[in-house]
């Protein structure tokens, strides 16, 4: 695959606060790249810089091997999809979808044809003459996606586009959007603070912390083998400790009155704060003064019950310190 986007040592500051710090990464053509990180870590600023809505303080961005840092947003083949659908309220669904094509001076017949094709893909063709206020939240977001995809941008940036939707709708839309992006062959950069969303939407996943990527890799590798405690806390599915990480599958919650077996080592003592089901297995959220984690148990636990979080010591994965070409721990 060809490299579509390259970001080289980009820096961005607001006043005296560094938002992006020496950020370097690349995207392959047709790749779906997800960035996950806590609020305020610089995810949205990164997208705004790529879209041209913010200028860089240092560094360069190459799209198809051409620097785009000096190009205005309208001259970059990059479309940004926001958290809210931001459909123009006075335009119909069809007029919203054809909007970008009209700016690109595509003939009326052609832009209507392309927009109608895209509306069929997002299953909203029969709503083409409706106004945004007549649509539901999910429908609006699908129109917004159609409006972006119809332009066939080199790169589609998605800034937490499902965050304003309810959980069920969010899950169903994720699948739809990913399928549509693949069908259209669009390269995408998706940012989210939702762990599950990050894993599902990306071919590769980057963990962002304080303006830099602290880990990039296949979602499964990143989730099961975090490279640092920060990465483990953000994305790891298990217990993040100073010295290493214990995956959820190896972690057991034991009632305090039961003694752990001789091979087990107790890492944390806490209380059951919630009971949930994950992959058809009953799981317990165990909380203590410094945090909380999901764990399984051989016993039936109840909320408020005091437990010990145990695992075999050899199950703990040490954080990797090996650096990749971007200076990130792998």
């Amino acid at each position, binding site marked *: 695959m060809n490299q579509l986007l390259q970001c080289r040592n980009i820096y961005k500051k607001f006043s005296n606060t560094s938002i992006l710090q020496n950020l370097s990464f690349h995207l392959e053509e047709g790749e779906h790249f997800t960035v996950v990180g806590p609020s305020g870590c610089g995810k949205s600023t990164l997208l705004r810089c790529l879209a041209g809505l913010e200028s860089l303080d240092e560094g360069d961005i190459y799209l198809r091997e051409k620097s785009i840092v000096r190009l205005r947003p309208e001259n970059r083949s990059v479309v*940004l999809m926001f958290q809210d659908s*931001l459909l123009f309220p*006075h335009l119909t669904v069809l007029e919203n979808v054809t909007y970008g094509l009209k*700016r690109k001076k595509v003939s009326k017949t052609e832009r209507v044809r392309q927009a109608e094709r895209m509306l069929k893909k997002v299953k909203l063709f029969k709503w083409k003459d409706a106004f945004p206020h007549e649509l539901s939240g999910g429908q609006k977001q699908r129109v917004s996606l159609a409006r*972006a995809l119809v*332009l066939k941008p080199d790169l589609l940036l998605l800034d937490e586009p499902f965050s304003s939707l309810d959980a069920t709708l969010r899950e169903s839309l994720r699948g739809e959007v990913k399928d549509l992006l693949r069908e259209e062959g669009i390269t995408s950069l998706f940012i989210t603070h939702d762990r599950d969303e990050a894993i599902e939407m990306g071919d590769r996943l980057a963990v962002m912390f304080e303006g830099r990527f602290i880990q990039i890799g296949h979602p499964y590798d990143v989730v099961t083998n975090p490279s640092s405690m920060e990465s483990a806390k953000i994305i790891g599915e298990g217990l993040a400790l100073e010295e290493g990480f214990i995956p959820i599958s190896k972690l057991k919650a034991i009632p305090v009155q039961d003694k752990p077996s001789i091979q087990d080592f107790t890492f944390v003592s806490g209380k059951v704060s919630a009971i949930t089901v994950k992959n058809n297995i009953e799981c317990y959220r165990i909380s203590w003064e410094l945090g909380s984690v999901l764990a399984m148990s051989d016993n039936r636990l109840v909320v408020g019950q005091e437990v010990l979080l145990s695992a075999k010591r050899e199950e703990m994965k040490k954080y990797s310190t090996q650096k990749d070409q971007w200076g990130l721990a792998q």
Partner: protein
Amino acid sequence: MNGRIGLLSNNWKISLYLLPAFAITLLLVGYGTWSAVAQSFQTIDGEWTIATYAELFSSDAFFHSLKLTFRVAILSTLLSLVIGLVMTRMLYELFKVSTWKLLVWIPMLIPHFVAGYLVFLFLSQSGLLSSLLYQIGALENRANFPVLVQEEFGIGIILTYVWKEVPFVILMLLPVYYEIDHRYSEVVRTLGGSNWDAFKTVELPWLLPVLIETSVILVAFVASAFEIPYLLGVTRPEMLPVRAYEWFYNGDWSKRPLAFSAMILPGVIALLLATLSIGAVQKHRLRMIKGRSR
């Protein structure tokens, strides 16, 4: 059921609060308007007739005044809207600071007749500006200074109204600018639109209802205000309010119904414009409010 009773009592409460203002408006403005309409359809002896309107429509002088009135009203309104819009667009962030806002609103605090007098003082051929230009040698003779006041086109009148009305336009547009979600402009830019496209697609649809409403208010006001055209206009043709004043106050009482009919006509035009514009903007405004992403 309880909710309905609660709503009803609330409506009654609101009606009660509004009653004093409504009563005063109805008594003073309503009675005044009714009297004016009635007298425009009556002879001086109190007989009902449409002869006054027939006389009015056969008068060339009336049509000259009507033409001048609406030319001045439309030009000063358009200029005020454009200048007000440009200033608001450029400076709305600055206007968040009350000092700047107050500075711009100063002309609104000055009465119209004082504004007219100031314009006369500054812009007449013997005024301060011509004196200044003459003193610094930019003018050989003060008579060379262009005639800006008391001339047939109404330049002085238009300039005074523009100076007075621009702050009013800003006052009307500022809340709209603060309400606009500027992420929409970013959407336009990433979809390939220019700054001008962003203005047309994002700002103008929000501004349009207010611009239309403001223009109706301004046209109605300028077409019916008396002081400035009286101070800065010429004797012939004079603007309608001045002509109506003359008909009302000259010695011939039989001309009084003409004065009323001459002023009722712009009133009816303003009322029609208001009704049409409210009908046109209301649907658009509702669609904008309901459809925005928040």
